[in-house]
């Protein structure tokens, strides 16, 4: 569906790159026409934002399922789909099918599987997948163990100017682990691996990316040691970015008490000191992106013994509110919150969205940042309610959402 008439959103607090400013925004033909001093013209539809935040629609860099109701609830208008599908996104035909699957009211950006079957051995046809609509290359939930394969992948992706999104856990060290080594895993007798598995993977991949001249994005960096490596790489100008999901700045491995499988994640929850390190890295800019990692899993995958359950959480509906909680905690300001959620992921993916700027796609969320609500697993819009935040009171709600200037029913 195309935008029929221009739309002017009045009386909003606009989230722009420079900061928050009162004003209006005019959307014409699916793109942003004016930001700030816009006025409604004859024939425009108008909406009064009533002093609420007017922000870009969220760009979710790394989800495992297309789950439109959950994305819309969370203000997400674009989502990058991880290649870990069944079958994996390792063929151009699958990529082109996925690229069209959410339109018109949700744009799905497929991430091409780096290797065939995500097995980590043979490089997949990533140029063909790029031309079929893949926005980046991803190693999926696994690490490419073979350093030679990883180097050749990075060189090839650099040639194609595609960013490589990698999972940072040394597979030989993690093995069958489902928890981070430490007191809590030991008390529960859970197979565990040292947190250093992450830093080892990051150190290698940064070295190879610098060698290859490739752009590298770590989807989740969750440890102090890993973040230090990214910080140092950025300081010397390496084209490295990284992200995290809210679970790793909200929760530590204490949340796995009583074998709660909703807290079984990949990578696993870390020690409290690592959680604090993630929060500091968000504050100081080391972490570029916060993504949902949305992975709704029903009881057949979660109502199992901890080690037998699938990893992942339904995160789309809670992504925004968890980042807004960092604003309330005064770790970041509002403009930075939406940089983490919108403009940084859009930049990494190379899409013309994620920012309130003339000429960009008219993906807009109107948000009441103070509206209180309680996260309830049983009442989620997602296809499954596997959230470790069940029962938690929170604040911030999307009250209206537009994709390409067209309103979406919430």
């Amino acid at each position, binding site marked *: 569906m195309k935008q029929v008439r221009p739309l002017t959103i009045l009386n909003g607090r606009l989230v722009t790159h420079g900061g928050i400013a009162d004003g209006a925004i005019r959307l014409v033909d699916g793109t942003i026409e004016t930001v700030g001093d816009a006025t409604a013209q004859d024939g425009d539809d108008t909406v009064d934002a009533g002093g609420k935040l007017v922000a870009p629609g969220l760009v979710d860099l790394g989800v495992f399922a297309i789950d439109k109701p959950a994305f819309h609830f969370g203000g997400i208008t674009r989502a990058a789909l991880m290649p870990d599908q069944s079958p994996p996104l390792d063929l151009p035909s699958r990529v082109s099918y996925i690229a069209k699957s959410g339109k018109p009211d949700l744009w799905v950006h497929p991430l091409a599987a780096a290797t065939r079957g995500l097995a980590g051995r043979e490089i997949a046809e990533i140029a063909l997948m790029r031309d079929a609509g893949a926005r980046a290359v991803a190693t999926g939930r696994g690490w490419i163990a073979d350093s030679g394969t990883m180097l050749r992948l990075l060189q090839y992706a650099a040639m194609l100017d595609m960013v490589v999104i990698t999972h940072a856990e040394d597979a030989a060290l993690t*093995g*069958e682990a489902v928890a981070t*080594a*430490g*007191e*809590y*895993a*030991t*008390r*529960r*007798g*859970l*197979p*565990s691996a*040292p947190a250093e598995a992450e830093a080892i993977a990051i150190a290698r991949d940064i070295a190879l990316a610098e060698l290859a001249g490739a752009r590298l994005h770590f989807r989740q960096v969750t440890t102090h040691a890993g973040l230090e490596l990214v910080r140092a790489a950025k300081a010397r100008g390496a084209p490295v970015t990284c992200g995290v999901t809210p679970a790793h700045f909200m929760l530590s491995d204490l949340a796995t008490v*009583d*074998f709660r499988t909703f807290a079984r994640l990949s990578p696993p929850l870390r020690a409290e000191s690592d959680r604090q390190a993630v929060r500091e890295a968000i504050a100081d800019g080391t972490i570029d992106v916060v993504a949902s990692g949305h992975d709704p899993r029903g*009881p*057949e995958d979660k*109502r*199992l*013994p*901890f*080690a*037998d359950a699938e990893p992942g959480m339904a995160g789309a509906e809670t992504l925004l509110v968890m980042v807004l909680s960092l604003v309330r905690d005064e770790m970041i300001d509002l403009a930075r919150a939406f940089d983490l959620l919108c403009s940084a992921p859009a930049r990494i993916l190379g899409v013309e969205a994620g920012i309130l700027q003339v000429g960009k796609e008219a993906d807009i969320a109107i948000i009441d940042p103070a509206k209180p609500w309680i996260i309830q697993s049983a009442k989620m819009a997602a296809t499954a309610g596997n959230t470790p935040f069940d029962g938690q009171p929170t604040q911030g709600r999307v009250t209206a959402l537009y994709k390409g200037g067209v309103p979406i029913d919430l």
Partner: protein
Amino acid sequence: MASTETSPHAARYPAGAQAFPHRDLIGIGHLERHEILFLLDEAEQWVALNRQPTKHNDLLGGLTVINAFFENSTRTLLSFEIAGKRLGADVVNMHAATSSVKKGETLIDTAITLNAMRADAIVIRHGSSGATQLIADKVDCPVLNAGDGQHEHPTQALLDALALRHALRERGEAAEDFTGLVIVICGDILHSRVARSNLLCLQALGATVRLCAPPALMPVGIEAMGAEVFHDFDAALAGADVAMMLRLQTERMSGQFIPSAREYHHLYGLTKQRLANAKPDALVMHPGPMNRGVEIDSEVADMIDRSIITRQVEMGVAIRMAALDVLTRRGRGAEGWGATA
């Protein structure tokens, strides 16, 4: 018939269900010191019964006990089966290898199925940590954990404590608990639920527990559970009262943890010579099955005055009888234990 109300120790504990206010026996970690002692004291009457020519009591007559073993076991299954039968219960064994689990049924569905058959107690062994609790949450009857992954094996720890108490009493060292004792647990601590349950149980009863293993077989952060960590077995044994040996759980190992069984024996095998580092009369324990010549030499395992390994097996039946008795009291409507559910 041995009525529970006439137990000789009855006066030492709160009346009725307050002595053991748990529906299930999932782990030692859930128990208070006095609850552990209560189970040990309850087991004494069954130790006595088991030494009679006629080893039978109809306390659990008419009740159905299901032993649902999702992981292979010989001795624990046999011990639970004998315990149930000696108390007159109808005991049924379910082996995962021959069950619908192999046909893709989920653990929860299996639990619901067992529950629908109106079991009065279910004994669970499962290869995943936390599995027993998961089942317990879905059924209406008491659940006993016979080992879940690398988490807990509470009846093993209780029987070890009972065997140790008996051995000490026979020597005239009749103590209330294990205060002052130094107990070394040596072997594959990482993969051992027995080590975790014993650590919790022995500490609750006042002992100092030293854990000894090569670093790869020692779980990270176990010091936080109060254990003293050793890698040198001779140092660990110095002045110890008890050496408890564990086997290498090669079936749980992915990758190489030790270079060879021979080398393991060289560093961690309990030989007569090495045992001399401990106190002169130190006791030797092993939960079985033993790998003679690897973690323990035959001449140590078979020392009549020092090894209490067969005693442990004997106490296992008594402890499991006590656990089945105590946990089914509510359902049987025993006086002071609440109405029939």
